[in-house]
């Protein structure tokens, strides 16, 4: 087959001929030795079974072409339908923030659960930073130990080495320049810097149904359907968050429609279905193992025909380093963005216990589907969620929502001031 009129270049040919062999040598020989070693030593479960591991990277939305071995990371719809037993395993359990906890939250004193607040929920875990800051304040002057304490406080909050160094270097400069006199002022300055960092690029959550209808091709008004996509790695709380958001919107008088875009995990649609019931929202599901894009498409169509202004689309958890799954997500977004649908929010759901990998997650998802904001979940635990500082600084991604518990009301808007105060 003759390639089209692409200007060939000797440079490019050389580039291929140089880089690919390096790759092959490094990788291929290692593979060879590994398989030899394996055969020799009869290595056990460490080696993935060759019969089931060879795979192709399925093109987005399509199953593998004939003659290729089934994808093992996640079988395509066709393969999954064909495969019956044994080799399939849905993703790890979804977040458990579901039914109102039978045991009352310690923050609740009155019979009616009090609204979730930062201080209330993070209060239990406050002791950590408060201890460091207490030590800093009590000294009366700024010395080497001060910086150690502050650094330790930030690192333990998962702010990360890079962002911590940047923040503290800046403050050190200001102390040297005489702008900061003592520990109290220093702490205030740190607090202000953190709040500023978290407030930059702040953007409010979209309000459904407020966009003016766009005139269609034939001049008639077409009321668009807002689509909010919820994305993220496995186990972070996407489905529960969708449920909470649905409830909030419904309580505010907006009719929502839920799209059970997680067609992979066992009982994921059932789980979302229970949330739909709670919120009094309609839900569109697909066949288990079906194409998630078509579920979202159907949901948008249904919403348009019924006059629902917004579709909340749950998606399957996916690790960001799985190329084929990220491709699948890109397709979901493309489909969701077709009229009458219009993607107005792509919310990356992030677990507050996540360490520095959260930044890697944010980078990949941002690049892939243009994330518009972060939902930080499980902030009622001991983790501080400081990774959002790095995410904001490096990627300009704002946190929009915070999950503070398993109850349906445990969702609040992100408030940088309150967040930083609760850290301290």
């Amino acid at each position, binding site marked *: 087959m003759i390639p089209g009129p692409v200007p060939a270049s000797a440079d490019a040919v*050389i580039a291929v001929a140089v880089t*690919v062999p390096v790759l092959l040598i*490094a990788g291929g020989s290692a593979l060879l030795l590994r398989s030899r070693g394996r055969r020799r030593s009869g290595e056990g479960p460490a080696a993935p079974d060759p019969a089931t591991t060879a795979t192709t990277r399925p093109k987005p939305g399509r199953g593998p072409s004939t003659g290729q071995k089934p994808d093992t990371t996640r079988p395509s719809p066709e393969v999954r339908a064909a495969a019956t037993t044994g080799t399939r395993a849905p993703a790890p359990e979804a977040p458990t923030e579901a039914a109102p906890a039978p045991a009352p939250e310690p923050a609740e004193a009155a019979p009616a659960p009090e609204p979730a607040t930062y201080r209330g929920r993070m209060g239990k875990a406050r002791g950590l930073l408060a201890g460091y800051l207490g030590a800093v304040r009590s000294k009366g002057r700024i010395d080497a130990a001060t910086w150690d304490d502050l650094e330790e406080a930030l690192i333990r909050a998962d702010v990360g080495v890079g962002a911590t160094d940047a923040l503290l270097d800046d403050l050190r400069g200001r102390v040297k320049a005489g702008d900061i006199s003592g520990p109290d002022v220093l702490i205030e300055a740190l607090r202000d810097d953190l709040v500023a960092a978290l407030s930059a690029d702040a953007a409010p959550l979209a309000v459904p149904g407020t966009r003016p209808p766009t005139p269609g091709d034939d001049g008639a008004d077409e009321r668009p359907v807002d689509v909010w996509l919820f994305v993220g790695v496995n186990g972070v709380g996407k489905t529960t968050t969708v449920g909470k958001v649905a409830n909030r919107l419904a309580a505010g008088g907006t009719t929502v429609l839920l799209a059970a875009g997680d067609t992979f995990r066992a009982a994921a649609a059932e789980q979302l279905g229970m949330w739909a019931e709670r919120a009094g929202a309609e839900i569109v599901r697909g066949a288990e193992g079906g194409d998630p894009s078509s579920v979202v498409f159907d949901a948008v169509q249904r919403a348009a025909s019924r006059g629902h202004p917004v579709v909340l689309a749950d998606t399957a958890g996916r690790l960001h380093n799985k190329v084929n799954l990220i491709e699948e997500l890109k397709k979901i977004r493309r489909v969701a963005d077709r009229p009458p649908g219009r993607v107005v929010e792509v919310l990356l759901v992030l677990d507050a216990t996540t*360490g520095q990998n959260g930044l890697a997650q944010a980078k990949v998802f941002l690049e892939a589907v243009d994330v518009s904001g972060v939902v930080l979940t499980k902030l009622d635990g*001991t983790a501080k969620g400081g990774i959002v500082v790095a995410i904001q600084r490096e990627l300009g991604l704002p946190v929009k929502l915070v999950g503070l518990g398993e109850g349906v009301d445990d969702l609040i808007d992100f408030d940088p001031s309150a967040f930083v105060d609760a850290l301290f």
Partner: protein
Amino acid sequence: MFESLTDRFDGILTRLRSRGRLSPADIDEVLREIRTALLEADVELGVVRGFVDAVRQRCVGLELSQSLSPGQQVIKIVNEELTGILGGESLRISYASHPPTVILLAGLQGSGKTTTSAKLARWFKQQGRNPLLVGADLQRPAAVEQLRVLGAQAGITVFSEPTDAVAVAAAGLEEARRLGRDVLIVDTAGRLSIDEALMEEVRQIAGVVAPDYTFLVIDAMTGQDAVATAASFHEALTLDGVILTKLDGDARGGAALSVKEVVGRPIAFASTGEKLDDFDLFHPDRMADRILGMGDVLSLIEQAERTFDEGVATKGAAAIVEGRFTLEDFLEQLQQVKKMGSVSGMLSMLPGVSKDLKQASSMVDDRQIGQVEAIIRSMTPSERIDPSTIDGSRRVRIANGSGTATADVNALLKQFKEMQKMMKGFGKGKGGMAGGLGALFGKGRGGMPSPEAMAQMAEMGEQSELAALGAGGPFAGAGAPGRPGGGGGGGGARGKGGKGGKKGKGGGRVTPKAR
């Protein structure tokens, strides 16, 4: 930009070659790098401190060896320390004298307990046991359904009832006895370690089932919080081990080190994917490499194993190693490489790859690979096996057939020749092919090359290639791919008749061969 840890150390320690030992100042600087690396890997701060002190002890008075660079020596120490902490005694399941052997899983929400329960059950089944799964997560909607589906996939019975968690656990134990099962695995709801009521609940569950093994299930991407969580669960339940999940992600996984230090119990299992069989005994040495940021090589290999057809890959590798790599082999491998995704992405995963090479690889995308493929496809099979037969007129034919210019064909042939030379020399290094490569790999962990070895290989390959191109090569001022007209040197002369010296029928080997 992330240099590998070895690079960073070598940067600090290069001035040391004249001196014999590491001075305290040198050690401090290096330890600072180690501290940063470990924090970036999410190892908990207190654990990092203790670790760095231990390494300091070993570095003081360290004599610089002849064969390893100082950076490599320090890495070796760090690696050994890490592996030591992560490893130690591995967990041996000893079955209860009165069945069933009870296993309790606990952890935070979203850590992967439900899937892990099913995987563990399947693992026991493979050991010849007869397990029963108990769905005691009544908190999360459809959690029990999920477990039932997984159980069905694995062919393992799941027991649950809509009462309460403690009652279900107790009833599950009864059911296991009734059915004569010898292993009972209890999945529980995720819970915060600071939620007193739920921690009390899991204590009660443990009370009624009296587990033989209690495992904390923890996500490999957990940050500094790992220690607080592990310590709390350990205090409440007295853990017997830890199961690390989602290791198929690219988190460095420092939480493993933190938890091991704090809990002092083995990391028993590693969960490495979404399928039920993505479940394995934990490998401390691989985790140590990963935490140090040298684990990408392993992911690369694993990714390759997943996407490469193993037959094609080993065939190609054998050809390389045995010095008989042909254009035919190259074509096969090119197709595999295309499937794997971005070449530059993969190259960036190899430690020690130079900037030049990375820049070169950024020029390579599917289109470029496609062009090279087209060129090779326009050759006859015998031409592919013996490219020395490809004279000027054949080159023109090939260029026309592939829609490229003869200069491109020339470039490929020239490069390929260099590549073959390099591969031959590579295989023969240090006496014999397998021996040569084997020597590079040091202690094989089941035949796995160490990341240092991988780096050396990549470097060797790269240096030969770049040397063949001449200093600067075509990448000096490399522009966008597909630039017409060619750029700087290295490519064949863009003249008529291709390479000089092979005009028409000159020379003895240009007789046209039968196709």
